[in-house]
């Protein structure tokens, strides 16, 4: 086999093997990337009923595929926030006597509006919009029209 024929053959094989490898690796990588969560299914959630959420108490629920919290404040209004601590993602707890959110993982504290009182968290908890319809309390994102 002449040298040029051999190197031609080698190049075809190398090229073919490269194409094959890329063609196999591509779907494997796409497969491993998790499919996106459909947001429109979940941007309006019935978080609780009026009866189940007594004043000065909180209920944790899932919103936008993350933990969220609905609080019935002492003054009677409702507040809904993301319950995912902005530090490293632990779910915050609600301290009802002090009306603050406290993260047990590293000690961050947030006030009732989600602003940081004490670190290590730096960013505030996202606020959500609350609306009441009949007996149900709905939570939506702030830019959603109810």
């Amino acid at each position, binding site marked *: 086999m002449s040298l040029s024929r051999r190197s031609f053959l080698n190049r075809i094989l190398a090229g*073919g*093997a490269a*194409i094959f490898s890329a063609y*196999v690796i591509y779907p494997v990588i796409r497969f491993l990337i998790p499919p996106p*969560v459909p947001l429109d*299914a979940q941007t309006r959630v019935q978080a609780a009923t009026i009866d189940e959420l007594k004043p000065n108490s909180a209920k944790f629920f899932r919103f936008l595929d993350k933990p969220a919290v609905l609080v019935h404040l002492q003054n009677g209004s409702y507040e809904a926030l993301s319950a995912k601590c902005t530090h490293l993602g632990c779910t915050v707890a609600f301290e009802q006597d002090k009306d603050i959110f406290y993260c047990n993982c590293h000690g961050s504290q947030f006030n009732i509006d989600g602003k940081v009182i004490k670190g290590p968290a730096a960013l505030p908890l996202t606020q959500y919009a609350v609306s009441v319809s009949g007996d149900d309390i709905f939570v939506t994102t702030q830019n959603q029209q109810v």
Partner: protein
Amino acid sequence: MTAFLIQVADTLSAKIPSFTDRFNFTLPLIVVLLILMFFILLKSYESEKGR
């Protein structure tokens, strides 16, 4: 978890791709494999003869 999965399944209309879509992806790969098979055999026999 189950309720979430069912909700996702109902919301998105994607089912498995159609026959055409499936083959649009795999047919070129099949062709590449067959070509590769042919050239590997060619190389194997040629380099053995060339010894």
